[in-house]
């Protein structure tokens, strides 16, 4: 009995110390990010940032475009054929904005980024540790957090915000153009109603969500990447952990932000 209690106690203590460690790690990232932004560091960090946006943002654009286009078309076609039967044709705009701008836009882009970049970052950093590349940085006095983590942190967050914008661009406007072929609507009427339905809170909520998800994904992925100690077999394990944890944290954060929005 006492052994069980001891085990539970130990586990709680380990959990608490890990939470503190993670919080300290996040704090460190924030401090270094502040430094990175304040005094434009030497070219290398900037270059990593650009490449990170290229890999995380630009290369995911295709997937995002397809998903958001399809989603938008489905909502418009379904909405504008069913809703007028209840005399609620205008609800289609509210539904579009709720689904694309507020809910699915941020969370779907986050999921895609987790699958693409979360794993990539965790694997890359794990490899860098196993091959002692991190130690090589330290030996030159180059802070790995400042030069490896911060550009990824910023890159993923910026990419996520931008991809969310593109998701909206394709989901709201692209899908409208596609719908024209199947189910013609008046362009001016569509845009006017959409812009009137779109509230500042919608835009704000969407942006806050994508920024939060970006922070969660980059922090989790780099945190687990750095958890690798010495062997390459740990790398797939941490990649899986990074993905799983990112998913859970993103969904929890999503629920929390949505609740805050409605409360």
């Amino acid at each position: 009995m006492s052994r069980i209690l001891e085990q539970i106690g130990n586990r709680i203590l380990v959990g608490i110390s890990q939470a503190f460690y993670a919080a300290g790690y996040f704090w460190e990232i924030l401090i270094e990010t502040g430094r990175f932004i304040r005094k434009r560091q030497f070219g290398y960090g900037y270059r990593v940032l650009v490449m990170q946006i290229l890999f995380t943002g630009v290369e995911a654009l295709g997937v995002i475009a397809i998903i958001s286009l399809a989603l938008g078309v489905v909502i418009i076609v379904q909405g504008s054929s069913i809703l007028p039967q209840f005399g609620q044709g205008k609800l289609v705009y509210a539904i579009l904005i709720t689904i694309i701008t507020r809910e699915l836009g941020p969370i779907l882009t986050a999921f895609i980024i987790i699958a693409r970049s979360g794993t990539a970052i965790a694997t890359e950093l794990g490899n860098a540790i196993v091959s002692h590349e991190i130690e090589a940085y330290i030996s030159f006095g180059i802070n790995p957090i400042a030069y490896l983590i911060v550009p990824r942190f910023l890159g993923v967050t910026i990419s996520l915000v931008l991809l969310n914008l593109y998701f909206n661009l394709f989901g709201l406007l692209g899908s409208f153009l596609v719908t024209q072929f199947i189910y013609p609507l008046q362009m001016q009427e569509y845009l006017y109603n959409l812009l009137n339905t779109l509230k500042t809170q919608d835009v704000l909520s969407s942006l806050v969500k994508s920024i939060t998800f970006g922070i969660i994904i980059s922090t989790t992925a780099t945190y687990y990447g750095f958890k690798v100690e010495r062997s390459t077999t740990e790398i797939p394990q941490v990649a899986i952990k990074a993905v799983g944890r990112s998913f859970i944290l993103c969904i929890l954060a999503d629920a929390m932000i949505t609740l805050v929005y409605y409360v």
Partner: protein
Amino acid sequence: MKFKIRFASQIVGVFVIVGVLFITIVLVLMGINQRWFAKNYYFKSRFPSANGLSVGMPITFKGFTIGKITKLSLTPENTVEIDFYIQDTFYPKVYENSILQLQSNPLGLGGGLVFHQGKKPTEPIPENSFIPSLDTPEGKYLLEAKLVEIPKTEDAVTRLLGEIDPILENLNRVLISVNTLLGTVTASLEGKGPSPLAGTLRQSEKITENIASTTKSLSQSIDQLLANATGITTNLTEITSNLKEGTEVLKDPTGLVQKLLDPKGSLATFFDDNNRLFDQIEGILKEVHANLAELRQFSSFLNTTQPRILGALEEGRQAIRKGHDVLEGLRNNPFLRGGIPPKQPIPTTQKGYRMEEF
């Protein structure tokens, strides 16, 4: 080196700029559409109660939303003071002596806060001034002094009533003409001796009464009207048969002579009065003849007007049925707000399945 790697900065630059541009354009358009940058002119008003008022409630003018309520507060005198704004584009419409009216619909739908412009065009009144509401003495005074005019509003129910009105009027007119005609008939028959004719007279009186009661009851119950009209018709048939009877009596000279001689009891008088009696009889017969002609005319007129009356009744009935539908619809549809939308003929799917040939 791969194209993507070599031009990484340029590609990322375009990626970022397009994204930022998109959100900027959206925000600017939202701002313009939702009037973030336009100036609003604030005013105050007072109501006896906050019932039906709420913050954010739109203020309309001729169907346009021109402003919104921003604040409701209870004053120490227990009246409700509201703060509201008028959009800059509508500000020049705010003449002196304008008032606000809280319109409520008998069905509780489609009401709103309506702005009524002062009658005389003036410079717009300064910001933060007081615009009285119709529910306060100031507003009522302005209305009574004809400084402001409240146009007749139309909602679903008034429209419906408007549709029934001309039908009823039409019906009324027909009945009035029937009435006057019967009046002349009565006048011509008044005071004349023979019993069948007196019967005719009484019957005519009954008709007039009937018609009068019909006209009165029309405003209360249109359904009853049809029955009454049938009553009129049967009455008229009775009149006709009575008249016929009278005519037949007159046709038989012996019976008539006997009857005529009877009161005096002496034939001598018949011959001694220098044809006075005969002349009298002849005059009566002439009058009866004229009356009969008039009656014929009347019955033929009634024959022609009867379909018109029936038509008018049918129209009224349809209008009422339509009104019933509308009210039923209003009661049943919880989504409906702001009037009745144009009906869209929607083929029902149930019908489709049945009708289709397999």
